[in-house]
């Protein structure tokens, strides 16, 4: 089995429209969970979110292209362009185009287009909906656009497993590259959540914080929604070395599990297994891990279960781990969360800076004896890091990443 290098990163989210901008905001510990641009009519109970403000689709795409590209697919494509440009990979007529995969994750797909169609049907009584509804809403719209734009002809597919979508996508891509099935993979996820129907649905679940999410904090009142896209270029290590690529980090393990317990209520056993299996897959022991980019949604239940699972997996070592939830700054981007947080984790390994858990006021039972890196980024040499996602439906996915060496 080959090692798997990360040679490109791309990111667009509330923190910025490229990796450098986003990383700067993360290191400043600055939350971008802000009052919603459109407060709704009647007003949403959800008042804040991490929106990608100032994103101008026409800066990135022609008018004609935009007919077929919903916001989530735009985010996926913009992030993939940045990641592929950084990797320096060129897809032409050679075998690399056939030996490259694209695996994306999204929970919702083209929610805006779907809602527009329903408005015409049920609100306006118009029985005709746009013939572009299907290609715009399909969850693989982003993956297919990237394939078309770059001429990538290997395995291309999309995974939809709620908040674990893009960690599952990265894990699958990692295994495809490691097994030698492909030389490279573009993997990640994207989501555009600020559609009226969806906001009403989240509102009804009563899990969204009234202001900002405060992961691991005593006064946490729920999650904050966010939108964006994040992509990584994974590459056969020898292939990357041979062409002199800048290797940003290594992905060395992946584990996944299902709670088989409850459709929305998490249990610690599933996350424990995902982390243990990821570490086993990476041939790492818990004592070697320095940092966890936590799922850390900021709901009462998630943070209590996740920290319990971390204590179970890491034992006494849990106390010396650095654990942070960057969702406190970029919000919970659902199907994009795993990829966005994997990008943050790669940068943590590369630069030796751990982004904080922002909006933190005081520890509670969940974080009483853990270092959740409150509010201020911290310099730290991180050799091995773990990135968790736990989805509704009880689906858990954990990546293990290592500093490039």
């Amino acid at each position, binding site marked *: 089995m080959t090692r798997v290098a990360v040679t490109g990163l791309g990111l667009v989210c509330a923190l910025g429209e490229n990796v450098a901008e986003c990383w700067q905001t993360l290191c400043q510990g600055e939350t971008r969970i802000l009052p919603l641009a459109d407060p709704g009519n009647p007003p949403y109970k959800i008042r804040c979110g991490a929106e990608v403000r100032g994103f101008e689709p026409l800066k990135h795409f022609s008018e004609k292209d935009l007919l077929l590209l919903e916001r989530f697919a735009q985010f996926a494509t913009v992030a993939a362009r940045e990641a592929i440009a950084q990797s320096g990979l060129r897809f032409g007529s050679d075998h690399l185009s056939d030996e490259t995969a694209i695996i994306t994750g999204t929970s919702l797909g083209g929610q805006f287009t779907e809602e527009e169609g329903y408005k015409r049907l049920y609100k306006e009584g118009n029985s005709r909906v746009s*013939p*572009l509804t299907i290609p715009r809403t399909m969850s693989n719209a982003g993956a297919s656009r990237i394939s078309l734009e770059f001429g990538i002809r290997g395995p291309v597919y999309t995974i939809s497993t709620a908040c674990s979508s893009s960690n599952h996508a990265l894990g699958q891509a990692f295994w495809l590259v490691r097994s030698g099935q492909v030389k490279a993979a573009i993997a990640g996820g994207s989501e555009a959540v600020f559609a009226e129907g969806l906001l009403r649905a989240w509102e009804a679940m009563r899990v969204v914080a009234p202001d900002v999410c405060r992961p691991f904090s005593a006064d946490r009142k729920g999650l904050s929604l966010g939108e964006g896209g994040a992509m990584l270029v994974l590459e056969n290590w020898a292939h990357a070395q041979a062409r002199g690529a800048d290797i940003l980090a290594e992905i060395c393990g992946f584990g996944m599990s299902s709670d088989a317990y409850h459709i929305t209520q998490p249990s610690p056993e599933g996350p424990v297994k995902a982390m243990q299996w990821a570490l086993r897959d990476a041939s790492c022991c818990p004592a070697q891990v320095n940092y966890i980019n936590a799922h850390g949604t900021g709901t009462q239940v998630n943070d209590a279960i996740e920290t319990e699972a971390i204590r179970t997996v890491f034992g006494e070592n849990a106390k010396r781990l650095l654990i942070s939830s960057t969702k406190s700054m970029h919000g919970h981007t659902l199907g994009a969360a795993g990829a966005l947080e994997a990008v943050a984790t790669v940068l943590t390994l590369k630069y030796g800076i751990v982004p904080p858990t922002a909006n933190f006021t005081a520890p509670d039972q969940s974080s009483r004896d853990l270092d959740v890196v409150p509010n201020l980024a911290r310099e730290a040499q991180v050799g091995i890091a773990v990135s968790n996602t736990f989805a509704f439906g009880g689906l858990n996915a954990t990546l293990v990443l290592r500093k490039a060496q």
Partner: protein
Amino acid sequence: MAEHSERDDLASKVIRVIAQTQRIPVDSVKIDSTFEELKIDSLDGINIVFALENEFSINIPDDGVQNLRSVRETVEGVRKLIQEKQETSETVPPGAA
């Protein structure tokens, strides 16, 4: 003469719909342009049909869509459907609708 200008009017409306739907300048669409010349593929074609149905309040049948290959064919197809619609509405006795 009146008929001639009506014909022109319909053609220019169809051309405008095609140009708007394709996001191309209206001047680039001529009555004798083929869809191939305008780079209108099958998906573009059904999107144009959708826009024409909305613009003229007509229903374009599925088998009619497959045969559209040029602007002229489209204009003539739309004209036929508008005429059929008018004839149908004229034959309906008052109050029957």
